């Protein structure tokens, strides 16, 4: 090895060094910093006086935090489950050599190109009681039809679920369809020759083969659900009252409009812990399982 070569061997590391230093400072540095803030008495401004677990205790005693968690539960299950279910059904149907498949795919997926704020604004109009869908159905000849979920404390979170599914079902569909296209046709042909019916083939052979895709989609949608912020802000702004608060809007409100920085940081840490518990095992297995095909 000459000196030139040893410089060449250092060069790649030098090139990525700034990215890794800045990237890690951004990810892990700020993560730790936020963690530190969550152990302080910070209110309007960061104040590094140690408070131990006080902010966490306060957090878990707040009704509003529990509402946010319950909403995250409802939203998470509804949004992830609904998107997966609709996505897989649409993918299987589109896989039946459908005319205009391309056009349909484009239609199912376009909401994904839109901002959640746009989605929220649009659905706010559709779900508006008195106008929107309620009025439409009444005009169809059902004058007593009521659809006031958006302003109903109990039901408003389901409006967020509907709009969320509308936004993301096409994404699940796209991933499932890609998975379906990757399945070897000869397995299906063989099963057909054996006399298995098409629904049976899907149920027994094709869908089980999609398990990795299912898992990836579940991961991506779940972490989106936990981070979900824009949609709630645009659709309900957390209201009525704080009935549709989720952890992300809770964090925002506490940190930036209630002057409770320590509490906001604690809630952000809880969000991080949830995502980490979900994603780290997934990333680990994804990175471990692949090297053999390279």
């Amino acid at each position, binding site marked *: 090895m000459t000196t030139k070569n040893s410089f060449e061997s250092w060069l790649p590391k030098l090139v990525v060094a700034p*990215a890794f230093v800045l*990237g890690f400072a951004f*990810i892990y540095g700020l993560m730790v910093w936020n963690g530190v803030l969550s152990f302080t008495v910070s209110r309007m401004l960061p104040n590094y006086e140690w408070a131990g677990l006080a902010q966490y205790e306060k957090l878990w005693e707040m009704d509003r935090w529990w509402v946010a968690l319950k909403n995250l539960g409802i939203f998470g299950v509804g949004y992830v489950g609904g998107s997966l279910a609709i996505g897989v059904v649409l993918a299987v149907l589109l896989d039946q050599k459908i005319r205009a498949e391309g056009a349909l795919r484009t239609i199912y997926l376009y909401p994904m190109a839109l901002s959640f704020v*746009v989605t929220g604004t*649009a659905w706010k109009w559709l779900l508006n009681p008195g106008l929107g869908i309620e*009025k439409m159905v009444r005009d169809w000849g059902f004058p007593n039809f009521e659809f006031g979920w958006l302003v109903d404390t109990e039901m408003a979170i389901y409006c967020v679920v509907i709009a969320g599914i509308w936004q993301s079902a096409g994404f699940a569909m796209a991933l499932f369809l890609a998975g379906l296209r990757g399945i070897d046709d000869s397995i299906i042909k063989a099963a057909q020759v054996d006399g298995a019916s098409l629904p049976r083939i899907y149920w027994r052979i094709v869908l089980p083969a999609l398990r990795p*895709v299912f898992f990836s989609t579940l991961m991506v949608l779940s972490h989106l659900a936990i981070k979900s912020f824009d949609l709630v802000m645009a659709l309900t702004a957390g209201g009525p009252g704080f009935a549709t608060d989720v952890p*992300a809007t809770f964090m925002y409100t506490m940190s930036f409009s209630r002057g409770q920085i320590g509490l906001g940081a604690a809630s*952000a840490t809880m969000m991080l812990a949830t995502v980490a518990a979900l*994603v780290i095992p997934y990333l680990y297995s994804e990175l471990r399982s692949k090297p053999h095909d390279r």
Partner: protein
Amino acid sequence: MTAKPSLLPSVGRLLVYAVLALATAFFLLPLYAMLVTSFKDADEIRSTSLLALPAALNWSAWGSAWSSACTGVDCNGLRPFFWNSVSMAVPAVMVSTVWGALNGYVLSLWKFRGSDALFGMLLFGVFMPFQVVLLPMSQVLGWLGLSSSITGLVMVHCLAGLAGTTLFFRNYYAAIPKELVNAARMDGASFFQIFWRIVLPLSTPIIMVTLIWQFTNIWNDFLFGVVFSGTESKPVTVGLNNLANTSSSVKAYNVDMAAAIIAGLPTMVIYVLAGKFFVRGLTAGAVKG
């Protein structure tokens, strides 16, 4: 396939088409309702159904949404916010793409000891909830004198997008045969020559994917926009949200809908023109490796 002819397949097919048609209606309804509403005036909105076509193409709501609707105290429509988004997204997309390309090149073709572990740690940045960075980042931006500025937003988006763009390029470059690089090295090509002459010319598809993906993410971002921007630097998503949530006595739904379409138009146009790359970004974002 010589399946016995039976009634079931055609009934089945009919059912398939029926479900697909229903889904099409569900996905198109909001867009349709937005469009027709944006062309109605206030009286028409109250008197006609959600789905009714407007009596005439009345563009006044569009004009208002673009240049005179009120968001809070300002009444300049979405226009200033729209241009803020443009001047934020363009540099942020460029920088994060170039950065991702260089990282991906090293992490796939110039692996060093520990590079996979480092990459794995960086990858967590794709998933982490950005709520964790909001509070410390606003302090950092304050120290740098970049609070409430578009430059600050560009910086945040570059950092936030770094993990994703690196992932895209690294996975794409993993498919380039190592022999190609080794042969070039034998011929005396340097690190940057290989990147410039061999790798980059092969990269057009992944560059497209990354540009489109980053543009969509950054244009659609609301969280960083609402936390880090000031009066003069709010992106269009924040403008739209303020406009649609402005508490005025009379709600102008036609203006809200026109504004929502305006805010969504750039990414929609890209999606329609280059949907292929958009979808590839989606799938690449979900399937790691």
